[in-house]
């Protein structure tokens, strides 16, 4: 059985059921039942129209489940009188599923889980593994999410920005277990961008591709972090970079700038530089200025300080940093980097050690500890 095909069909089958009036949670259960049935039957006899087959079986499962519910007998009579399902509509309405799964009434964690399940077609076990929680926990998270959006109808377009945020969350989880969430996020964003004409969707897709292109070079074989400047650029995926840049340029040409396009532009400038020294930092600072205008996020200002340090020298970077709250995540790491480049190794070593204490993940902590150790060894020599 072609698992990729089934997964790509799952969302549209689900959407057909919901369109026909099935409650979201019940529809989702029925689709899962139909997939189990497909696993059983297809190896022996694959249907010519896989989607039509799944819709028919899922609808029958839905009716069975509804019928079994005695309290719903009256409504079920009405359902039974409806015409038998014809061929599935060619219209692609998976898009609405994206909006439903990123509904503002859901917490970010629930929205992510529901998106991976309903749009991505991943199993509960796969999602649980990717997020390192027990399957029972993830099952509850998903069923709560389903209940939350159960009453939501497909009558209003949702907020694209929310959908993009959910997809970006998935992407940023990276990969663990047997599901590569970064690749999955790219697949879903590709799907979305084929269905919706929006420069920020293109911007997010470009951003993901450009980041993903550098993934192989981002960690050493022992799992330790390799900073951008030290990455082996020969290991960057030039095809992905070219694709990302192409998508970004088309988006920018439409003159409706948003934060994902601006971030992608910065990523593209990094990806474009043949060596770290040839990075166009002046242009990067300009993009950070745009990004600051669009988001006014302190994290963006922090990253901007790094870029200013490269474009105008570490003193200028430190001056930009001085305007920011020292309690920001990674503030100490940025300060350490700028002080090192300014030649103040003692301060840099102290700040690297301080940054290591508050690092948000293991790889970063180890990296910062190594930086501190490197400077301390250098000084005591």
């Amino acid at each position, binding site marked *: 059985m072609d698992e990729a095909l089934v997964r790509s069909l799952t969302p549209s089958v689900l959407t057909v059921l919901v369109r026909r009036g099935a409650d979201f949670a019940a529809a989702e259960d029925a689709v899962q039942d139909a997939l189990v049935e497909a696993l059983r039957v297809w190896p022996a006899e694959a249907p010519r129209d896989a989607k039509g087959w799944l819709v028919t079986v899922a609808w029958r499962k839905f009716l069975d489940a509804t019928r079994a519910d005695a309290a719903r007998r009256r409504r079920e009579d009405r359902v039974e009188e409806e015409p038998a399902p014809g061929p599935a509509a060619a219209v692609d309405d998976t898009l609405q599923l994206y909006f439903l799964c990123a509904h503002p009434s859901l*917490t*970010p*964690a*629930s929205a*992510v*889980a529901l998106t991976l399940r309903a749009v991505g077609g991943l199993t509960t076990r796969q999602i649980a593994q990717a*997020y*390192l*929680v*027990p399957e*029972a*926990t*993830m099952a*509850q*998270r*998903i069923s*709560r999410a389903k209940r939350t959006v159960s009453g939501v109808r497909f009558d209003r377009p949702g907020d694209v920005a929310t959908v993009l945020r959910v997809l970006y969350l998935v*992407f*940023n*989880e*990276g*990969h*663990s277990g047997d599901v590569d969430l*970064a690749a999955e996020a790219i697949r879903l964003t590709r799907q979305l961008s084929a269905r919706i004409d929006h420069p920020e969707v293109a911007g997010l897709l470009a951003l993901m591709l450009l*980041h*993903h292109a550098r*993934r192989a070079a*981002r*960690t050493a074989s022992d799992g330790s*972090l390799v*900073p*951008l400047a030290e990455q082996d650029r020969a290991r960057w995926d030039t095809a992905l970079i070219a694709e990302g840049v192409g998508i970004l340029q088309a988006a920018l040409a439409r003159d409706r700038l948003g934060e994902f396009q601006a971030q992608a532009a910065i990523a593209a400038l*990094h990806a474009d530089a043949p060596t770290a020294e040839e990075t166009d930092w002046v242009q990067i600072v300009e993009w950070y200025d745009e990004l600051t205008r669009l988001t006014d996020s302190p994290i963006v200002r922090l990253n901007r300080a790094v870029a200013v340090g490269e474009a105008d020298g570490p003193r200028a970077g430190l001056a930009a940093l001085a305007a920011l709250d020292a309690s920001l995540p990674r503030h100490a790491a940025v300060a350490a980097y700028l002080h090192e480049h300014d030649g103040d190794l003692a301060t840099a070593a102290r700040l690297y050690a301080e940054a290591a204490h508050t*690092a*948000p*993940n*293991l*790889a*970063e*902590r180890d990296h910062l500890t190594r930086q501190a150790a490197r400077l301390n060894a250098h000084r005591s020599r």
Partner: protein
Amino acid sequence: MAKYLLLKHYRGAPASANCVPMDQWTPEEISAHVQYMNDFAARLEKTGEFVEGLALAPEGAWVRYDGEGRPPVTDGPFAETKDLIAGWMVIDVDSYERAVELAGELSAAPGAGGKPIHEWLELRPLLAAPPTITE
């Protein structure tokens, strides 16, 4: 989402407000306490925030490599050391505030006299694998 470790101490944490040692509670009080903890875990499973939890025996030993060809050195039990962990639970929540809220609820487990222990729980974020984007 971020994971946090909740550490319950036998010893090593600041004294709780209702600090009668457990062996001086009534059996019913102990049952109520255990029930509260189980209910708490079950509730977090339902909200999709539970990851793992276990109780630990108070006995433990320190173990150390003692050089090539020699068996590891053991020492202990470490009951006399200042810090002693009674159990732990890992939760996976949307925010630090939510983690604090849950730790507060767990700390309200009933103790002697059926009143909340108000025990201090240690709350520690778990360091995770790196996110994809680090630059």
